[in-house]
């Protein structure tokens, strides 16, 4: 199944204006917006978030036991119409599948989460080339090209991954394995990192086994930025706008991504990340025990600016 990754995440919220401002400040572009009903907010490759009123007609149900605001649907992009047809054949034999007027398939996965599939509309990313000067390697930037720009407009490049709390992680993992997702790494007794067949990204999906019947829903979701510097600079700007850091900045071990997580009006933590590992079919999945040492190499806190003499 040539699923290339996440196309959209659909959230149901009560505070539409807060969500709108949050996503503007996060750096997504507004594709459409109606203050009374929500909008579509996209990264540079066209992937993004769809925000709706939590009581909007047609939204998939809340995952069982979850409270609004919450993720309501995960929309996957697939390579072509043939892949979409193959997924439809596979899913229609085992569950109710609806097809909307644009040809997108909608159903509920084995964890109770709304999912959908459409032919991807991802577009080529047009952004400043990011090069790095590394002794021993060819120069990453031309002479006189200065990397540091305090006013840089940093934009999320692509929707990366989503993380679920699920009641039965083995059952959920088996469902995605049948769709061609492979496990790249695993936290023991917690859950797998998975990537679909159409991308080499370390994970587009991570699942965490619920510790109780109320721990269901979205744990976090993430857009890729261009570099570690972009994670730090964009996160710093976000902090200065009054948003609340949840965790970070730091660097994960599994996936190698630099990370910074923030509380959000979507009922899930919203992460910015960069420089995730790529894996192919030669990769052998690792297993680690969960915990702080295996979750990150290092962790920092933002502090006020300072200079010698102040």
């Amino acid at each position, binding site marked *: 199944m040539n699923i290339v990754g996440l196309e959209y995440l659909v959230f149901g919220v009560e505070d539409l204006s807060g969500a709108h401002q949050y996503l503007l400040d996060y750096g997504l572009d507004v594709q459409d917006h109606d203050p009374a009903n929500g909008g579509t907010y996209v990264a540079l490759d066209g992937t993004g978030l769809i925000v709706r009123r939590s009581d909007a007609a047609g939204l998939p149900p809340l995952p069982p036991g979850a409270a609004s*605001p919450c993720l309501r649907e995960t929309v996957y992009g697939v390579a072509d119409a043939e892949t979409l047809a193959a997924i439809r054949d596979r899913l229609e034999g085992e569950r109710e599948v609806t097809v909307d007027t644009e040809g997108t398939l909608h159903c509920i996965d084995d964890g109770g989460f709304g999912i959908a599939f459409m032919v991807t509309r991802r577009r080529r990313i047009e952004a400043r080339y990011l090069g790095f000067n590394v002794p021993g390697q060819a120069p990453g930037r031309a002479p006189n090209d200065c990397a540091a720009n305090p006013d840089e407009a940093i934009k999320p490049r692509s929707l990366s991954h989503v993380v679920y709390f699920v009641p039965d992680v083995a059952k959920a993992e088996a469902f995605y394995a049948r769709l061609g997702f492979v496990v790249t790494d695993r936290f023991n007794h*917690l859950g797998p990192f998975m990537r679909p067949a159409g991308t080499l990204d370390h994970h587009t999906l991570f699942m965490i086994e619920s510790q109780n019947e109320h721990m269901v829903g979205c*744990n976090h979701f993430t857009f890729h930025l261009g570099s570690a510097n972009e994670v730090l600079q964009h996160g710093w700007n976000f902090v200065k*706008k009054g948003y*609340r850091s*949840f965790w970070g900045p730091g660097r994960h071990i599994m996936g190698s991504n630099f990370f910074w997580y923030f509380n959000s009006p979507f009922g899930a933590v919203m992460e910015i990340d960069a420089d995730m590992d790529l894996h192919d079919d030669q990769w052998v999945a690792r297993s680690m025990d969960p915990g*702080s040492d295996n979750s990150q190499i290092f962790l920092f806190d933002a*502090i006020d600016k300072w200079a010698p003499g102040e």
Partner: protein
Amino acid sequence: MADEQLLCHLDEIPDGGARGLLRQGRDDRVFAVRQGAQVSVWLNDCPHNHRPLDYRQDQFLSGDGRHIVCYAHSAHFAIADGHCFAGPCAGQYLTRVPARLGADGSVWIAVPLPAAPAPFRAAGRSESRHS
């Protein structure tokens, strides 16, 4: 109360809203919720991951203002008693900070602050969290 400190004035908390107070580093240690002349004060420490509840300065309540919400993972709490009735820490409670409203509208809280159920994050990130 044996020892008290002035937290704020009632007028500084929007009626039907909330306000984060006692800044420590980048976070507010407590938040106050006002409903008319009623004020409740809570540690800004969600029992799930022991991190602040708000997603932006003073954003502690649900869209309709009826509940306290943790904007990390959508835990919902009753304003009356801090009981978590939905979300990953359902059945647990926010930690209430004893508070008293003076005749002039000043809001006083007991000091020292009550301990959080697990070490407050400023004392160390002992809680394991995952990517």
